[in-house]
């Protein structure tokens, strides 16, 4: 029982006997550590410094010493270093790259080797704030906290806000039907969907306004997210609203997924193949389900199910989201089994490639670059894996098979909850939660495999941030519609004008 032993030793400290951690003797040959270069650089918050930080370790004769482990720590400002421990090379030099944290002002990194003269070596860098006005918040629409806003879908100048127990709000943000605009959203209607079989409340989570091939815009698909056990079970039904009259939507159909392996199954995000009138829905532990949504929809949609697939298999499937790529394949982000490519044939799905390729973190949202050669997935939370502070960048080969290309760390957050690439592929929005760095992040995709942060709008809280975001062009300007968590400041639809920021 080490804690008791140490406590007794510490009690002896009161009597004059020292206690404390033993320190390992330094490397026999190494005696000093000193900076080579790297201190004093400046950059924008959240970006990497141009030059690496370097130290040199020498012996008593001032000769460089190789193989000494140097411990690098981002000690002030919330930034990150490329390696926590970096051994010296033959030239005695250890170097790391430093990505500034989200806090403007002076930031610091230390390089340390216990027992060496000069240790620790402190590097400072100046983090400049993002220029005010780059991302312009044009409107904040408070949402009653029951619990709040989860997702937004924008099309034809209408913003569909999915607001948990408040139901579905429809705002005119430039459609013209009610004279609204992004800076002056006008509420068209509010509809509370039915409570699903295993949910305690409407728990309205997400949606998609279906534009059928013939031009009909009759149906709004709504996902409900009830209680779940991440990795094992989920709840929540699919609801279909007839929005022929946008001012008075009417629920006309629903689908309740049966249990799988004795666990309840609920819906999450979805994507539509509108030309073929197929809805693909992520169903967490139920995998992916495809529906035929052609024609008139009413009542129970069980007969509309085309196919189901659990790409990771039983016990290794918990699908967050799906998206059709430009090649017609369906891409799947599974919290447990990673990123998949599925073939589709009239809604029938089959695994083509990928899977079991993200083991360090849980997956979250996804987006396929319109060039079809690159994809991005977010990462989520914690549990038994590392915190979800990365964007995974995937290279898709000629057949669309994914290979992990790189990981972009979003400093100061615990979850990257949403990603979306602009329709022209030139930039990407990311929303993040939980930490000093939480908020809206915009990345330049001049090189799609190497996103570069171009702006960050902080919506920071230890217990919240921005949960989701989507972009739309209205009256020639580009906006991001984002869902703010209960913290900070209460749930709200935040509308940003990003026209002057994006490439």
């Amino acid at each position, binding site marked *: 029982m080490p804690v008791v032993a140490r406590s007794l030793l510490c009690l002896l400290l009161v009597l004059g006997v020292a206690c404390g951690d033993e320190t390992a003797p330094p490397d026999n040959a190494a005696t000093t550590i000193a900076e080579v270069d790297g201190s004093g650089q400046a950059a924008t918050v959240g970006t990497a410094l141009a030059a690496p930080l370097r130290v040199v370790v020498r012996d008593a004769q001032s000769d460089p010493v190789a193989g000494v482990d140097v411990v690098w720590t981002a000690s002030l400002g919330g930034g990150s270093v490329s390696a926590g421990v970096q051994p010296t090379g033959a030239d005695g030099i250890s170097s790391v790259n430093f990505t500034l944290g989200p806090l403007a002002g002076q930031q610091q990194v230390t390089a340390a080797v216990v027992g060496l003269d000069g240790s620790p070596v402190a590097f400072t860098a100046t983090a400049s704030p993002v220029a005010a006005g780059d991302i312009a918040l044009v409107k904040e629409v408070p949402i009653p906290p029951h*619990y709040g806003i989860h997702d937004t879908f924008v099309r034809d100048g209408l913003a569909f806000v999915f607001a948990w127990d408040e139901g579905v709000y429809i705002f005119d943000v430039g459609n013209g039907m009610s004279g609204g605009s992004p800076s002056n959203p006008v509420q068209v209607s509010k509809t509370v969907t039915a409570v699903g079989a295993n949910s*305690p409340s409407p728990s309205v989570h997400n949606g998609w306004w279906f534009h059928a091939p013939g031009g009909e815009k009759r149906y709004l698909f709504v996902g409900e997210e009830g209680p779940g056990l991440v990795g094992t079970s989920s709840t929540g039904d699919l609801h279909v609203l007839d929005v022929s009259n946008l001012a008075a939507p009417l629920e006309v159909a629903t689908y309740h997924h049966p249990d799988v392996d004795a666990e309840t199954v609920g819906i999450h995000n979805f994507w539509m193949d509108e030309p073929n009138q197929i809805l693909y829905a992520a169903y967490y532990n139920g995998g992916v389900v495809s529906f035929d949504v052609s024609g008139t929809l009413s009542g129970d949609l069980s007969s509309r199910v085309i196919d189901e697939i659990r790409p990771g298999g039983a016990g290794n499937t918990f699908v967050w989201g799906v998206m059709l790529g430009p090649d017609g394949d369906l891409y799947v982000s599974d919290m447990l089994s990673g990123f998949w490519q599925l073939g589709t044939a009239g809604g029938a799905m089959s695994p083509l490639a990928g899977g079991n390729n993200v083991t360090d973190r849980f997956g979250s949202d996804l987006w396929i670059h319109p060039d079809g050669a690159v994809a991005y997935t977010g990462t989520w939370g914690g549990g038994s894996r590392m915190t979800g502070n990365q964007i995974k960048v995937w290279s898709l080969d000629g057949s669309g098979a994914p290979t992990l290309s790189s990981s972009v760390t979003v400093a100061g957050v615990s979850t990257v909850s949403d990603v979306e690439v602009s329709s022209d592929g030139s930039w990407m929005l990311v929303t993040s939660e*939980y930490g000093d760095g939480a908020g809206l992040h915009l990345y330049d995709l001049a090189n799609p495999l190497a996103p570069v942060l171009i702006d960050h709008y902080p919506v920071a809280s230890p217990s919240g941030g921005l949960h989701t975001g989507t972009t739309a062009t209205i009256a020639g300007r580009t906006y991001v519609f984002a869902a703010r968590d209960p913290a900070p400041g209460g749930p709200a639809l935040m509308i940003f004008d990003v026209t002057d920021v994006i490439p």
Partner: protein
Amino acid sequence: MRGALRLGLVAGLVAAPAGLAAQTEDEVTIGFHAVPALIQVDPVPGGGELSELRILHPVAMLGATSLDGYLTAMAMLNFEGATIPDGELSPGSWGEGFVDRRHPHTYAHEFMVSAWQPLRAEGAVALSFSLGKGFVPFGSDDPMTRPILRYPVNHHLSQILERAVGIAALRIGPAVLEGSLFNGDEPASPEDWPRVKRFGDSWSGRLTLWPAAGVEVQGSYARVASPEHREGAGLDSRKWSASARLERSSDAGQLYAMAEWARTSEGAFDFSTVLAEAAARRGSFGAAYRFERTERPEEQRLADPFRSARPHHDNSTLGTTRWTIHSVSLSLTAVDDWPLLGIEPFVEGSLAQVTSVDAGVFDPVAFYGDDQIWSLTLGVRLAWGQRLHRMGRYGVATGPSPSFEHDAPQRAPAMHQH
């Protein structure tokens, strides 16, 4: 219906003592209590050990009785919001957004007024009404007044506290039946007050029997609306509790024992607990032991691994863990100048075994670095004036009728108390 019940409670509180013809001596007591403690835990979330020196349970109490004891008021201010704003290091504890730290209680911890009315001679049948902010008639006594300092993991399964509550209680001989209405929302910070608009959205009932001298048995049930989401968008709880309690005193010393079972269901989630504890005191020396096996939900942690989001963003959990904990405490009454000063140093240790009881994605070993967690506490209980009362019972529910009372001493349960 609920509105009528609310009005009835208030009317009863006002009317109950009205039948008393004579007013006798009034009494007012005050008291202070605090426990400076050095706590060491190994491992903490993320691995490694952590030691902290904190002042726990810093409270000021005011008690008043009037009308020959038929009207009582009690107030307790709790200053943990100032002394442990980040919580008390306490592996296994959870609730109100804290994990592996016990949350600080609200500054206005308890403000209750009770009035009771004997319906037959010597109070063999009596009725009481209680109203204020305090404990809901559900479950066992608050851990603050029990022999082991460290709160059990089951605190949020076995007690419901800091609510705006109205209680009606009927005592018939050795039995008391209580019913209450209260607000379901639990506080989210030490400054929080119950949401008045939610008063009456939750209810509880408790039946208590005193079958023999010093023996108490209770069973209770509660429906709590959205306790973890103050606006009411969270899951509702159904709670059950059963416990038996023994307290004996003789020339040889004092003996206390309690065993309880409780269960909370929230949607598809179920969390159960069993706990047994005993304490003995002989002369100045006291010893206590507690065994606990409790299940708790695992939620997504924030950047601070001791915290989870409040209000939460959905109703999902990462899994359920079961905490099996053995705790031992030894104490010495150094000063016992009651009703003035009380000083009682103590040492307390516990060993917790953590296991995952369902699939989920929470792995205790990956998170803590070990599935066994040690903790050691060195501290001193300090008290001045009125000692901690038995927290969780009001009016006629504090004990059996006088005809039984001579066989069943009802003083506070914790062995360190007067």
